[in-house]
């Protein structure tokens, strides 16, 4: 595609004769050279994991801005141009607060993803101020909790398309990682749960399959799986410093007790707070522990 430049690949407002908007397709290419990011949604939570590329030994690695919070019940990671991601995330944060302001409830993750996708499509050469002249060069994985539907995971890309998924990998190692996720989770998550044959040795032979313990896939297993997959697709050797890992899960009973109590009335303050879930960021030690457990398992 890069070799055959055509007259149609410059503008975002012209279809090519084959019916393509080439600039949008090039934007999708920008994701394929970005950091690998993985999201898995299971019954009891969502995990997001992403590769952090460190360009220099002098770089501060403690700053963890590759998995960000959109609202108390929504978090997000991305592949592609991180500045573009920030713009979209900012838009999402405003949309989330807008919904809380008008309805006093957390925004449903699907609506939020829709809203971000609407923004992703707002590019063009003319028209409104502050509009981007090119498509956003970023794809997002958005994990969230919905009062009605439970934990959910969405993927959106520069064309403004989004879809709900239970396991998705994007970025440089995205294709390989997606295949590994599919192999490991086949018959265990998503459509066709428990209908497929229990074990298919073919996948094992390829050595791409993570052994998911029997029973429902737990968040802990999903977390290990993301690290397992990242470890295999990353160019650099995986370490506690070059990945970020976050989960969204139900609060424990103890965490519920910590909810703020209004001093004068004794009421639990729930305003601006989605009460039932929490975003947990894994620190370097916790990440190291998962990496170690994978080493021992082999």
């Amino acid at each position, binding site marked *: 595609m890069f070799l055959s430049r055509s007259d149609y690949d410059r503008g975002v407002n012209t279809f090519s004769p084959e019916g393509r908007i080439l600039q949008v397709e090039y934007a999708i290419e920008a994701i394929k050279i970005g950091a690998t990011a993985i999201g898995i949604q299971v019954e009891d939570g969502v995990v997001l994991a992403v590769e952090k590329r460190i360009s220099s030994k002098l770089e501060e690695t403690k700053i963890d801005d590759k998995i960000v919070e959109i609202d108390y019940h929504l978090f997000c990671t991305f592949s592609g141009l991180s500045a573009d991601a920030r713009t979209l995330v900012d838009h999402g944060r405003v949309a989330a607060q807008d919904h809380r*302001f*008008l*309805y*006093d*409830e957390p925004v*449903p993750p*699907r*609506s939020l993803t*829709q809203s971000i996708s609407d923004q992703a499509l707002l590019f063009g050469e003319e028209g409104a101020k502050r509009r981007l002249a090119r498509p956003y060069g970023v794809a997002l994985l958005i994990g969230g909790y919905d009062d*009605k539907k439970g934990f959910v995971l969405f993927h959106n890309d520069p064309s403004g398309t989004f879809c709900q998924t239970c396991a998705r990998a994007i970025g440089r190692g995205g294709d390989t990682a997606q295949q590994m996720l599919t192999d490991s989770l086949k018959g265990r998550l998503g459509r066709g749960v428990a209908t497929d044959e229990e074990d298919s040795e073919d996948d094992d032979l390829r050595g791409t399959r993570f052994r998911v313990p029997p029973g429902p896939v737990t968040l802990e297993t999903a977390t290990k799986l993301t690290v397992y997959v990242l470890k295999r697709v990353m160019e650099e050797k995986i370490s506690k410093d070059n990945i970020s890992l976050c989960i969204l899960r139900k609060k424990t009973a103890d965490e519920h007790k910590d909810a703020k109590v209004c001093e004068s009335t004794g009421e639990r303050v729930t305003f601006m707070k989605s009460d039932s879930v929490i975003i947990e960021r894994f620190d370097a030690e916790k990440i190291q522990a998962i990496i170690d457990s994978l080493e021992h398992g082999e």
Partner: protein
Amino acid sequence: MGEFSPYVDNGGTTLAIAGPDFVVIAGDTRLSTGYSILSRDVSKLFKYSDSIVMASSGMQADIAELRKQLLFTIEEYRVDNERDIELDAFYRLLATVLYGKRFFPYYSFNILAGISKEGKGVVYSYDAIGSADARTYGAAGSGQELVISILDAALKRKPDPLSIDEAIELGKSALKQATEREIHTGDSGEMYIIRAGRPAEYITFKLRKD
């Protein structure tokens, strides 16, 4: 040249009473200005869903506009979020819409009745600019003072839980008594009986026409 006076009081009385798993909401149907009766059959109740009913008194034109705004917004909510709005969200929406016209308010006094997420009957009573709180009963409109006294006497220190039949009778009787003393209230009464997980039931009853 007369001064611009944008507001008219069309009178009328509304009330709502909540029980453990139900709520009743009622109003009269008289529409008046001053000593004139403009209509004997204009509803003050508006059903948004089987678990959300709003009763409004004040100026009929403003109430009609407010209803249209709310209908538009909850339809938008339904298609955007692929679910019907619930009472808790509607409560906040109404407050926000009313406060949005803080400096030229809708001349409307609203009571919202419905079933909460936990399945309990709830009454929210609003002022014209969207200040609201949750109660177990409330009244609004030209007969507010009369009705609220009756409800206070009947409910404030009631030892046993309120039954649905008691609530219906109390609501009817309070409106009837307001009609005896208050000239903007009368003609006929209407009431929604809202129960968790069931369609809202609608009844009407006669009031004095003089």
